[in-house]
């Protein structure tokens, strides 16, 4: 099933034509209505009329997260305050939160792209969506809610937390679609198991998992545990929220709703636009949003684009699963590593869960990397020697995969720190300033 064939299966020429027209409109609109953009475009001497073809977008300056902080709270809004009907913000864990304002039309676009995502995941109007994304300033809860309503599905606005209640609802209400972070999904499945339930007791068929990075190995794990399709959903507060891109059942990249968001991939160092297939930083431009249009936003997420037609019939460009962020790349003793590399390694080891934490410290001038993994009944032995051997085995595997000597420490389960349902994977205790 495809929610909006007209826009999801457009031929290439019409799509480009539509994108160009919308890009020209939005550039003119922000130039006239947002001081920040007028100033920035004037700085590089670009006028809205200079956008003659899609490639001309490269003449425009980027928008960064810092720009959004500096215009806090409302200076990026392009419409009068009375036209803004909803506001969300980022979590603000790294400073002032970034604010996102929506007009009625924007909310409709958001609902539309989430509706596409739900249908892409095999959803229908008779589905029961257990929405465990947080309701509140976080975009996850309300985004899924708006879209679920649009599809005509039943949305259970259970929000994040209270795991016992989640399980009760999942079993009693026979939820068919689960929406949450992948780490919370894993936690739920562990809890289900602990309470004595099996996948036969639940009615789930798909999960829309996002808001944090995860791996193919974790997908397999979640699919086995729940007997579902575990699918990637992507989005970000600055651009709209979840639904900017979504995986279909072929699980071969996330379909970007290109009629609303124009993607580019750049080299994060040279800032040059890269070819399709090349891996780099994702840059997004909202081409239909009116409350807070964003031009060339640097997402810091690393991915690549694939324009081949998908087996599902959609022609929208697909981005590969996010494999890292330019800002969570760790440089340890000169070696570049991403937490996802560690996760992949851990999931290949029998008995380990995807719950892990990376702690970076510096002793003298030397970086030390500690990987904390959870002890499970399968791993636990009464013999110190065997536990130490296990720690060494894991350390060796990580060394082999990422080329770095690390210390592995076994910890008790369920102690991983969390923030708003998102697992905190990396603690960098080095004082690099």
């Amino acid at each position: 099933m495809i929610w909006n064939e007209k826009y999801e299966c457009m031929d290439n020429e019409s799509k480009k034509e539509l994108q160009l027209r919308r890009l020209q409109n939005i550039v003119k609109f922000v130039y006239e209505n947002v001081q920040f953009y007028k100033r920035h475009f004037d700085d590089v001497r670009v006028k809205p009329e200079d956008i003659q073809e899609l490639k001309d977008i490269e003449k425009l300056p980027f928008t960064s997260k810092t720009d959004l902080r500096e215009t806090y709270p409302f200076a990026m809004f392009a419409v009068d305050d009375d036209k803004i009907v909803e506001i969300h913000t980022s979590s603000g864990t790294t400073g002032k939160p970034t604010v996102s304002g929506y007009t009625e039309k924007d909310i409709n676009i958001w609902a539309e792209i989430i509706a596409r995502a739900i249908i892409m995941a095999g959803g229908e109007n008779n589905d029961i969506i257990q929405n465990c994304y947080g309701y509140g300033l976080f975009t996850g809860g309300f985004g899924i809610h708006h879209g679920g309503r649009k599809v005509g599905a039943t949305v259970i606005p259970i929000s994040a937390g209270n795991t016992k209640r989640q399980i009760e609802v999942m079993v009693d209400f026979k939820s068919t679609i689960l929406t949450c972070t992948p780490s919370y999904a894993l936690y739920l499945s562990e809890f289900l198991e602990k309470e004595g339930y099996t996948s036969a007791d639940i009615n789930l068929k798909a999960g829309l998992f996002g808001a944090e990075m995860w791996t193919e190995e974790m997908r397999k794990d979640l699919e086995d545990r729940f007997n579902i399709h575990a699918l990637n959903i992507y989005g970000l507060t600055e651009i709209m929220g979840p639904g900017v891109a979504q995986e279909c059942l072929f699980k071969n990249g996330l379909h970007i709703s290109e009629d609303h968001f124009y993607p580019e991939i750049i080299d994060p160092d040279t800032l040059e636009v890269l070819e399709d297939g090349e891996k780099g930083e994702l840059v997004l431009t909202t081409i239909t949003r009116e409350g807070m249009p964003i031009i060339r936003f640097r997402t810091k997420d690393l991915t690549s684009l694939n324009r081949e037609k998908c087996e599902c019939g959609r022609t929208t460009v697909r981005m590969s699963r996010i494999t890292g962020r330019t800002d969570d790349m760790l440089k340890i003793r000169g070696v570049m590593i991403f937490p996802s590399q560690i996760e992949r390694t851990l999931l290949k080891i029998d008995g380990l869960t995807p719950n892990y934490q990376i702690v970076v410290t510096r002793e003298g001038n030397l970086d030390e990397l500690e990987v904390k993994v959870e002890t499970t009944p399968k791993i636990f032995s009464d013999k110190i020697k065997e536990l130490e051997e296990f720690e060494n085995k894991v350390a060796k595997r990580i060394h082999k995969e990422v080329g770095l000597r690390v210390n592995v420490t076994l910890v008790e389960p369920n102690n991983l720190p969390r923030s708003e349902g998102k697992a905190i994977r990396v603690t960098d205790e080095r004082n690099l300033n």
Partner: protein
Amino acid sequence: MIKQLSIFIENKEGRLKKAINSLSTADINIRALSIADTSKFGILRLIVQDTAKAKGVLEENNFIVKETDVLAVEIPDEPTGLNEILNILDKSKINLEYLYAFVSKKTDQAIVIIRVENVEEGIKALNEGNANLLSQKDIETF
């Protein structure tokens, strides 16, 4: 042969206390205890009155628990007591993993908890050496 509980203890403030506290709240009496530790983690080993109940309580409190078979031997509480038992095991080439001891108030004997690699062979050797092996029931009523 008796049952011992082994509990994984993370090297973090308050974890040992939490384990002991959950048992005391559930009114479970600890008969004997030993802690093995490294710089990173520890293993708490316990002999309790009601092994199944204790295991359940600890698991409810999110501890990783394992049941292990160990041997309990009664020895005279005097300088040669332990030495004799070790001689028996040594002669039969039984590999010793670890041991710990406690004294009972009810008798003037000491009790040694022994973990060997092969429990059956250990029992056989100790019986042949006329050691006084205790049963689960003996331990519970001490």
